[in-house]
């Protein structure tokens, strides 16, 4: 275990129904407060959510829920594979970041949101978050190919997608910029007293932007209803976490702002969902922000042009074979009595759905050139 593998790799998800990983369980105890009693109330408050999570790690999903999680994750995976192919064919241009490997994060977290009430904001790796909402894959794919029928009329592209209907506030290409916006969304929830919360996603790399910490402070100071989610997939482009971060245990980074942290296995949708319930309940009770670190892994390159020289093939293979979020749930479905044929039928239906989206995205017309000048300001000019 001494090899300097990324964090996600050294933290394999416990096998189904097994006890929590020993590392995670021993974490809170391993961090005594200097010069203070370990059990002081203040420290406990920062760790209480993590302890609650460890007491009850996996969400007790009904058969129907489990199936739904499976379908959503599989849809994301197949959609992203197809997007990768369309990119290869030149139908998608520019920058395109796939969510393959990280599916359990968006599905587990967003399934715990209150639809039509809570808001979500994320970075540029955003296709999965859109799909986890149940947004029509056609309009997402058409946005990737830059067509008029795309969810942002082909103006945003892969990195910039929005849906007012779902209170999805984007898709942001500038690393870290979405985090203060999330703070603003949370402030608006509070101001309007609508009971909603904001889920603000960002990456391990984005976690080093200064504006993230300005937002942590404001969110804690003003007691905002926000859940910060660091999707730690081990890398920021070619930079491994340990080469860019002084504190690699990201869930601790809110401590200085008195934001409780949670360290979550992002490769198991049921653990993610269980953690989400605890975090969201805390925020909804008016107790202020929570910081969740979701340990996950991206299988594909950072974007479509990534030589991948910063990690070994074996490392990627190991995650795919032993830690895959979709395989994990597939196995669990089988254990619960789903037949192979039933599972195959799901797979087939999802493939067909994705093929339809690709056709739509390929055959929809490009925007009219006049669209270049719309949506710049309120008035056209």
């Amino acid at each position, binding site marked *: 275990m001494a090899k300097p593998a990324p964090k996600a790799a050294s933290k394999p998800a416990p096998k189904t129904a097994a006890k929590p990983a020993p590392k995670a369980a021993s974490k809170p105890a391993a961090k005594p407060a200097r010069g203070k009693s370990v059990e002081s109330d203040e420290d406990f408050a920062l760790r209480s959510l993590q302890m609650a999570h460890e007491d009850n790690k996996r969400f007790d999903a009904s058969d129907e829920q489990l199936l739904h999680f499976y379908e959503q994750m599989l849809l994301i995976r197949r959609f992203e594979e197809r997007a990768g192919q369309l990119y290869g064919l030149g139908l998608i241009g*520019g*920058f395109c970041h796939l969510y393959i490997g990280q599916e359990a994060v968006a599905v587990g977290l967003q399934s715990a949101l209150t639809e039509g009430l809570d808001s979500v904001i994320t970075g540029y790796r955003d296709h999965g978050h859109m799909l986890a909402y149940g947004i029509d894959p056609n309009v997402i794919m058409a946005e990737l190919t*830059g067509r008029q029928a795309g969810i942002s009329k082909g103006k945003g*592209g892969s990195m910039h997608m929005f849906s007012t209907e779902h209170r999805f506030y984007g898709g942001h*290409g500038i*690393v870290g910029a979405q985090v203060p916006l999330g703070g603003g969304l949370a402030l608006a929830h509070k101001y309007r007293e609508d009971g909603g919360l904001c889920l603000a996603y960002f990456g391990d790399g984005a976690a080093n*932007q200064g504006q993230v910490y300005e937002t942590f402070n404001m969110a804690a100071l003003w007691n905002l209803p926000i859940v910060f989610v660091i999707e730690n997939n081990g890398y920021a482009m*070619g930079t491994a976490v340990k080469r860019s971060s002084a504190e690699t245990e990201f869930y601790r980074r809110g401590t200085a702002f008195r934001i409780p942290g949670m360290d979550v296995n992002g490769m198991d949708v049921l653990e993610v969902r269980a953690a989400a319930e605890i975090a969201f309940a805390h925020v909804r009770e008016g107790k202020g922000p929570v910081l969740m670190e979701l340990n996950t892994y991206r299988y594909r390159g950072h974007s479509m042009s990534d030589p991948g020289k910063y990690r070994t093939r074996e490392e990627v293979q190991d995650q795919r074979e032993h830690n895959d979020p979709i395989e994990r749930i597939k196995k669990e479905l089988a254990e619960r009595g789903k037949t192979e044929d039933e599972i195959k039928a799901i797979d087939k239906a999802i493939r067909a759905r994705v093929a339809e989206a690709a056709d739509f995205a390929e055959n929809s017309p490009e925007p009219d050139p006049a669209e270049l000048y719309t949506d710049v300001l309120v008035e056209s000019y």
Partner: protein
Amino acid sequence: MSAPETTNDAPVVTEDTRRLNMIEAINEALAIMLERDPDVIILGEDVGYFGGVFRATAGLQEKFGKTRVFDTPISECGIIGVAVGMGAYGLRPVPEIQFADYIYPGLDQLVSEAARLRYRSAGEFIAPMTVRSPFGGGIFGGQTHSQSPEALFTHVSGIKTVIPSTPHDAKGLLISAIEDNDPVIFFEPKRIYNGPFTGFYDKPVEPWKKHRDSQVPEGYYKIPLGKARTVREGEALTVLVYGTMVHVAEAVCEARGVDAEIIDLRTLVPLDIEAIETSVKKTGRCLIIHEATRTSGFGAELSALVTERCFYHLEAPVDRVTGFDTPYPHSLEWAYFPGPVRIGEAIDKIMSE
């Protein structure tokens, strides 16, 4: 030090001249400066271990070690701020901002600190740093990977803005920028890293190695900041350009057989106003081309200067071909890009006056 300076317009071709692309030329300039000056330090996102997303710093960490060439976290404000401090203490940092579109988190440090340190300390402290950053469109990068924000910097007194258009110039200008005792923004037109893109997007781009300006002398040489390059001489019209648009303008004038004098500004601040004035007084017509948005773009400044200085020599109003006043689009890139069609129309108009 008797540094060779190529103040003439054509590249000096000697026996040891090789052909490089823009990335190789930049990489070579950085290596030479790391070699010559122990105070030169390169820092930025993925510049060390990975060698830069465009490979501009490839091999440098291996050769010069991690104290000279190193990776930073994704913290643009911090990267630029740290570089200002390093410079004030006497080092010569060369931070890379991966895309010009990511420079804004560091804008405060550039405007309020780097650009003002010399003035505020009455010359006691300076910020001799060179911020390298790929900029410009034509790569389907959409709004966050295509911008041309040069006018934001030319508007700030206290910063120099340099934009090379050939491998030969990139190397000589970068060496000058690094040796300069003021903060320099060095914008690299990423569309022409691998070849002189002419705007005829449906034709393959010729690789640099076939282009005359890819001849790059070995070793150390400088091109002074503030000296424009006459790309070709002409009598009918002066075209003021920089970066990628140099090649687009040249191709369009070639295709139309216009006897244009094309001036590659190379540096916007300091500006070679003499070269501009001399040319426009000779031709009586002036067309300005840039990719950046139009309103308050650098073309507006150029147009004002030409009008102020050459008004009585002008036979037609000064004209501009620029990006539209919109964010850079994701689709319709070629409708947006100020390419051959729009430049051709502008030339027709200005020549018919």
